[in-house]
């Protein structure tokens, strides 16, 4: 058996060999990038930035990813070196240290056949039954480590099949994944054709003996009807298509997962004493139905989406929770907000019980003024409200001079469900916001942001202000503050137990030189939810300096 370090060494060697010996006269193309973050932790027990090793004694944490890819002729290859140095990215409450080659692939095109070996990111349909992807801010990297074959049957139709194991840190989970999909394209009509992009996919996960032992060890402690029979194999299939006609586009996908054992945190289990407690492993089939309809004409864009999810927790190892070991990705059904306070409460996609719809309308009244209205509503399948948002935004601009964005957001956010804070009431917010960009001249501009989040729940109301000055193309400066203007009992308290209105400032500068970007910030940040594409996690408060270097070549 090859030692893992030698294994990595051989990968580098193969890549260098292929790159330098020259498979053809073509010299090929090298490209790559670096992303690195360093955090300097300064304990601030007042805001809850304490109690983890980084604040207590490590004081520093960093993470970086450097990738290289090389293309020559019909060969394509890539490699990535990852380093985590007392990083709190994997676990916001812990320190993670590891380094090495965490991603590599070799790809070869032989006529219609494409062969990929190594790590690969991919998805079937919208990802409901299978998506291998990377989301660095959330420490998600569930690439498949295995082999993929893709065959182009003709210009419009292709079929692919893959097998492997899901990545887990610098290794893999023990279960086996395999899948296949057939995707194509059809066009009917000449002048205004109606087009179809249909597809069908299938994924199978086979438990390892190790996984099955783990499941059985849980189930054998259950009594009576709580006991279920696990299966080694679970299959998930989906049927999907995009249908386009003129300015209309319809996407639909239906997915089914065969019965398997998974954790339902709300199912009632009988303990040995006879008491009922929440949370047990159950065995059920899962379904997801998802559809979106959009209309786009000059100046007008309308999108409507609807999704129903039932028991679709599909993981490589069922005892995992949160964002760990997910095989699939279920699209979120709310607006992706970017302003600090409008993004403070963001709903994570629910895997067991969710009914959601969203409507988004954008209309340009003229060249200077446009509006955007978004409404999203998420409930569970028993019609219990989880999330509701009404978002309005106006954009007014004067060409080459200034741009003004202003709007109002109303939210209802079920903190019990999304943050596991069982006793928390529904958070209701009203958030007006304004964003003004003024171009002083061709190179210098100033941007001002102001937001006010009104709420009686959670931490109460917040005021946020930001000034950003840009000396294009190299320098940018930011000064911002988030102030807890109306506190609740969750607010930090002084020695007498009185609530303190805390200011969370950020001061930072960025320097860009070609494809290199350096950023240094002093940050005090309140605990909050960080989301990406409907996948979220609760981040604790932060206090300290953040330094990042990003580069591409």
């Amino acid at each position, binding site marked *: 058996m090859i030692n893992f370090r030698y294994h990595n060494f051989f990968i580098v060697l193969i890549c260098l060999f292929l790159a330098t010996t020259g498979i053809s006269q073509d010299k090929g193309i090298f490209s790559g990038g670096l992303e690195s973050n360093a955090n300097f932790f300064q304990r601030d027990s007042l805001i809850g930035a304490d*109690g*983890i*090793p980084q604040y*207590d004694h490590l004081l520093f944490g960093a993470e970086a990813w450097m990738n290289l890819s090389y293309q020559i002729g019909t060969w394509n290859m890539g490699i990535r070196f990852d380093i985590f140095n007392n990083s709190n990215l*994997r*676990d916001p*409450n*812990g*320190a*993670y240290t590891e380094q090495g080659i965490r991603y590599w692939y070799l790809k070869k095109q032989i006529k219609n056949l494409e062969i990929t070996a190594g790590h690969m990111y991919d998805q079937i349909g919208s990802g409901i039954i299978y998506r291998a992807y990377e989301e660095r801010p959330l420490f998600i990297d569930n690439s498949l480590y295995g082999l993929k074959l893709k065959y182009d*049957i*003709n210009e419009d*139709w292709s*079929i692919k*099949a893959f097998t492997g194991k899901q990545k*887990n*840190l610098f290794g893999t989970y023990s279960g086996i994944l*395999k899948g*296949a999909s*057939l995707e194509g394209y059809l066009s009917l009509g000449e002048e205004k054709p109606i087009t179809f992009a249909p597809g*069908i996919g*299938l994924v*199978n996960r086979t438990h390892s003996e190790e996984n*099955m*032992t*783990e499941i*059985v*060890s*849980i*189930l*054998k*402690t259950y009594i009576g009807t709580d*006991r*279920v*029979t*696990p*299966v*080694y*194999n679970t*299959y998930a299939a989906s049927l999907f298509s995009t249908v386009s006609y003129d300015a209309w586009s319809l996407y639909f996908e239906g997915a089914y997962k065969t019965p398997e054992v998974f*954790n339902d945190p709300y199912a009632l289990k009988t*303990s*040995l*004493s006879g*008491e009922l*407690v*929440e*949370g*047990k*492993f159950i065995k059920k089939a899962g379904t997801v139905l998802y559809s979106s309809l959009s209309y786009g004409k000059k100046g007008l864009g309308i999108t409507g989406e609807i999704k129903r999810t039932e028991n679709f927790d599909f993981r490589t190892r069922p*005892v*995992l*929770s*949160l964002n*760990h070991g997910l095989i699939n990705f279920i699209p979120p059904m709310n607006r992706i907000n970017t302003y600090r306070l409008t993004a403070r409460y963001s709903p994570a996609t629910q895997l067991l019980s969710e009914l959601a719809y969203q409507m988004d309308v954008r209309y340009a009244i003229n060249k200077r003024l446009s509006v955007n209205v978004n409404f999203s509503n998420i409930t569970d399948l028993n019609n219990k409200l989880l999330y509701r948002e009404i978002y309005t935004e106006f954009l007014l601009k004067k060409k080459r001079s200034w741009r003004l964005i202003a709007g109002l957001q109303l939210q209802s956010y079920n903190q*019990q469900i999304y943050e*596991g*804070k*069982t*006793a928390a009431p529904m958070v209701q917010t009203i958030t007006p916001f304004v964003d003004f960009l003024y171009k002083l001249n061709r190179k210098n501009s100033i941007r001002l942001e102001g937001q006010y989040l009104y709420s009686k729940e959670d931490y109460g109301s917040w005021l946020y202000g930001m000034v950003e000055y840009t000396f294009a193309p190299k320098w940018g400066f930011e000064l911002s503050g988030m102030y807890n203007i109306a506190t609740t009992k969750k607010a930090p308290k002084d020695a007498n137990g009185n609530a303190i209105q805390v200011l969370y400032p950020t001061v930072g500068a960025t320097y860009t030189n070609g494809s290199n970007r350096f950023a240094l910030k002093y940050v005090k940040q309140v605990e909050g939810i960080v989301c990406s594409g409907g996948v979220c996690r609760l981040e604790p408060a932060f206090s300290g300096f953040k330094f990042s270097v990003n580069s591409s070549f």
Partner: protein
Amino acid sequence: MKNRILYTFLSVLLFISCTEKPVIVPEFVAPISDRVILLEELTGVRCPNCPAGSLKVEDLLQLFEGQIVAMAIHGDVLSEPLDESKYDFRSADAEELEHYLLPFWGKPAAAVNRIVSDGQQAFLNPDTWSGYIEAELAKEHVLDIQLSTTYDESTRALTVNMGIIPLKDMSGTFNISLAITESHIIDAQLNSTVVIPDFEHNHVFREMLTAVPGDFLASELTKNEVINKSFSFTLPTDDDLWVAENCHVIGFVSLNEENSKEVLQAAQAEVVH
């Protein structure tokens, strides 16, 4: 062309054509082992799901009778007393111990012999704890601990004698720890969205009689070469708490190395026999 596509895809679908033999979930039987496992439950009176964790601990104590000892640590997260609380279970030792058991992703969580799995030292889902216990019981039994107590009711003075008997020669950094727990404390506990005013808190960690990571024991352990240690402590006087009859001492030997804090063996004794 259509047929070609169909046949190709159908051939891929073949891999679902077989049905698998049903998995049999056997009746629970505790493994035969002389090991005693330390279960450190991370809990808190403000933790809405922690009653389920506590109930799981009681189930496990019943299933693995005599094979596990349990401590409920109200250290930091979600441990601040409720408005309805009579007592504050937190202490400097409890907070330090909770931080010593990082990383963990939330509560209730439990450390099982302080092994690390998937980067976590305390595991989130109570249903998974039994699997870790079984795996620990399957490991080699490398040392025994004999624990005895003497308690003077008039002075509340407690003496604990601990005898460590290595069953094989071992080298490393070995620490010894001794803790006091208290059970049958009736006080408020959040359960889901409601407060249970008279929840029975059991195995509540009260104090460490050694340093929280343990005191240094030895770097070499020789088979059958007994190491005796003695500890003295006076139980604090309190109107409701520190009821000697409800207190236990828990002793254990653990590794204290850069990559492992694993507990090798634990033992428990009543303060009052």
